[in-house]
């Protein structure tokens, strides 16, 4: 009776974070739904208890159905038959189990059949599903599209589309094209308004579309004739039942093989405009992408958890030279490093999620009533932080997930290279996380704003002032030193950059600076966790040691680098 929620007490720990009181209060808006819906909570304790119990259902389905199906789904994969995608048998079973359990549309308002859950339990569910099967997590996680519709679509569209999710509708976001990958401004798929029919028609090709044959798709298309940049793009919602779209082929991928990655052909496919014209990329897709990045953060932590567990189990069971290999320093060091990475990225995941939760809840609230001054300030603060924490999370969680999977396979030795153990699948699945929804390199581009505007630094100084356990002050002293060092590194780089007006210099060191800030932030988060659970003391201490060494390395590099050295690297 495997239950992925109950066997990992970290999750309950993060669910019980003190900020949940504020998040739930905002999300439930004085618990107004309690008289309208039998399943709505009556107070804070009731709401939190519901999160806990529903996550137990998710953990049960993950442990009993999705996890056991993962191998066969990886082998079978989806196929295209007559222009339509057919899921692997296990994928279909997974989807039905989650849909029947009412776990699609978790964050949607109750009026649309949703559970009105805040982001924290939703992201937790995403982590659980990813631990069970990262590829399937994509299909399930695309319910994010419903959230985007809820945020930006008209009331009519919402009434039309949103209740379908609860009934098990699948979703896709159709953004990329053969010539528009990281650079979405180059999207060419055409949307033309058909006066006679009174609706928009889509024509063109989309490529690398996860779950492309979904029931409901959000399509980014060029609605403004003659434009070539992002301002000519709008977002549309397409209903597969209306026809006009076929799947040309699906990609044969390294990992996440259960998740169909489709090339789609739109031929006079009728669609409806979401929100306003021309805001497709610059507003709606940006919001969609932020959600997706949080999703990949959760996916990464889930994969890392799975990889760590596989490595740990194997190391205990495999004996060489007369003892279990877990007793060799070379192996236990790897395992402990892996464990710390999982803990640190998980703390960053839920910290980021809470930031997103608060600002999203405020912005929803602002559509219902005018926010007062304090609330408006809070909305701004949380949004600013969420904007710089999200790329940091995506960067670290996905890189760590790859490192953990790599080390776990290493612990398996030759056996890990064979198809006999789940680690080879996990290792392949991990590889996409630092690529899609914005590569690590692009996360750095997004996060460097937090460096140059001083948002990270201010946050680090704020953390300094937080209450900690007095016996752990030695960690804080390290962190203050590291923050000073980080500040110096930022100054060194921006000085040269400003003097020479050479943006390449900042870009060249950007990752180093972002990572320095990220390391310090993660240790602070673990230190903060020790206030509620002494077990985190170990992780904070382990993490600060690694983080210090890692930041030293970056500082040394920056200090011993001159602008003229850049030339040696240019290709």
């Amino acid at each position, binding site marked *: 009776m495997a239950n992925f929620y109950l066997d990992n007490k970290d999750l309950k720990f993060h669910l019980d974070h003190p900020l949940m009181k504020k998040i739930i209060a905002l999300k439930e808006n004085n618990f107004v739904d309690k008289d309208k819906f039998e399943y709505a909570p009556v107070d804070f304790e009731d709401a939190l208890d519901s999160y806990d119990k529903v996550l137990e259902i998710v953990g*049960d389905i993950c442990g009993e159905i999705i996890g056991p199906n993962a191998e066969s789904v990886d082998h079978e994969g989806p196929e295209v038959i007559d222009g339509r995608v057919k899921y692997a048998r296990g994928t279909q079973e997974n989807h039905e189990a989650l849909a029947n359990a*009412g776990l699609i549309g978790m964050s949607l308002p109750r009026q649309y059949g949703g559970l009105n859950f805040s982001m924290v339990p939703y992201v937790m569910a995403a982590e659980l599903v990813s631990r069970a099967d990262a590829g399937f997590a994509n299909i399930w996680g695309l319910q994010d599209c419903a959230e985007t519709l809820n945020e930006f679509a008209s009331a009519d569209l919402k009434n039309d589309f949103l209740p379908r999710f609860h009934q098990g509708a699948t979703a896709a976001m159709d953004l990329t094209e053969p010539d528009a990958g990281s650079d979405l401004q180059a999207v060419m798929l055409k949307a033309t308004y058909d006066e006679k029919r009174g609706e928009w028609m889509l024509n063109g090709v989309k490529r690398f579309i996860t779950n492309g044959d979904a029931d409901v798709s959000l399509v980014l298309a060029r609605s403004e004739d003659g434009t070539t940049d992002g301002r000519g793009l709008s977002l549309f919602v397409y209903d597969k039942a209306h026809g006009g779209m076929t799947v040309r082929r699906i990609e044969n991928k390294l990992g996440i093989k259960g998740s169909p990655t489709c090339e789609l052909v739109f031929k006079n496919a009728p669609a409806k405009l979401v929100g306003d014209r021309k805001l497709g990329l610059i507003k709606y897709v940006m919001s969609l992408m932020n959600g997706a990045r949080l999703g990949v953060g959760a996916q990464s932590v889930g994969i890392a958890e799975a990889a760590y567990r596989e490595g740990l189990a194997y190391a205990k069971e495999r004996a060489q030279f007369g003892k279990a290999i877990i007793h060799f320093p070379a192996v236990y060091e790897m395992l402990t490093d892996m464990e710390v990475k999982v803990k640190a990225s998980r703390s960053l995941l839920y910290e980021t999620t809470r930031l997103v939760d608060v600002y999203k809840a405020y912005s929803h609230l602002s559509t219902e009533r005018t926010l007062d001054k304090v609330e408006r300030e809070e909305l701004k603060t949380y949004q600013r932080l969420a904007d710089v924490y999200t790329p940091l999370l995506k960067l670290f969680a996905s890189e760590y997930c790859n490192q953990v999977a790599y080390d776990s396979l290493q612990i398996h030795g030759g056996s890990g290279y064979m198809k006999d153990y789940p680690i080879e699948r996990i290792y392949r699945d991990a590889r996409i996380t630092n690529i899609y929804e914005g590569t690590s390199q692009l996360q750095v581009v997004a996060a460097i704003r937090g460096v140059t505007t001083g948002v990270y630094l201010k946050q680090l100084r704020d953390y300094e002032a937080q209450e900690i356990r007095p016996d752990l002050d030695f960690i804080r002293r390290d962190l203050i030193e590291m923050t000073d060092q980080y500040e110096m590194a930022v100054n060194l780089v921006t000085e040269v950059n400003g003097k020479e007006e050479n943006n390449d210099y900042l870009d060249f060191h950007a990752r180093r600076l972002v990572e320095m800030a990220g390391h310090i932030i993660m240790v602070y988060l673990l230190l903060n966790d020790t206030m509620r659970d002494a077990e985190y003391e170990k992780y904070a201490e382990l993490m600060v040691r690694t983080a210090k060494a890692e930041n030293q390395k970056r500082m040394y590099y920056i200090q011993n680098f001159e602008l003229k050295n850049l030339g040696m690297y240019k290709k």
Partner: protein
Amino acid sequence: MKGLKIIVLAKQVPDTRNVGKDAMKADGTVNRAALPAIFNPEDLNALEQALRIKDTYPGTTVTLLTMGPGRAAEIIREGMYRGADNGYLLTDRAFAGSDTLATSYAISCAIKKIDFDLIIAGRQAIDGDTAQVGPQVAEKLGLPQITYAEHINKIVKNRITIQRRLERGIETVTAPLPCLITVNATAPECRPRNAKQLMKFKHAKTVTELQSAVEDYYKLHEDRPYLRIPELSVIDVAADTNWLGLAGSPTKVKAIENVVFVAKDAKQLTADQKDLDWLMGELVANHTLG
């Protein structure tokens, strides 16, 4: 067809499937404290069959009936999380120590107080493994019984068609309603709990539980009568105490001993795929593997 009124018989049992070292006491009896209490697995198969009828014939109601101590109310909540409409907890000190005969007498008395068209039960419970209670209840109520069911094909004009799993194959039978069905583990597994059902029914409690609860949800119970799980006592079901408990149980345990299984008949295996598959299946089934 209009909906049916279905009663599902369910039992809370110690989880004997994941038995640890402390599962048995020194005297050879089950150490219930060391084993988590769970919904008897085949009763979940039975519940699934009832829920499938409910899916097919709108208006169907599924009522759980369980006999046990106060904590067995958890079984009723678990059932409601999966789609059952309500449930009764048959609980009374006078029931304690009942064997299958006394248990089936108590249950049949309770059923006489409940309106129904169909009763579905699991084939047997994993603690006693007798498979007697279902058939005995049917006998006491004078109902046709269909055992070893794994699929309900259809219900037409008050006749139910059922597929039975037997030792050497399957058999399809029909029976008039009302009747009692016992369901095998080979039937489809029960659906997972549903998030909304769980949130709706998680405060469902018996009066006894409500009185000893730490959180105070009295107001909620006043506003939402469906949260009350009725408790049925000996008096409520008008049972004769002479037929209950130890007095009503002819089963006498003479001695309990640990039995070491010795294979009676050997089976010869060849290296072909069919035999290997069979062996793997056996090893998984008896928990040597997996």
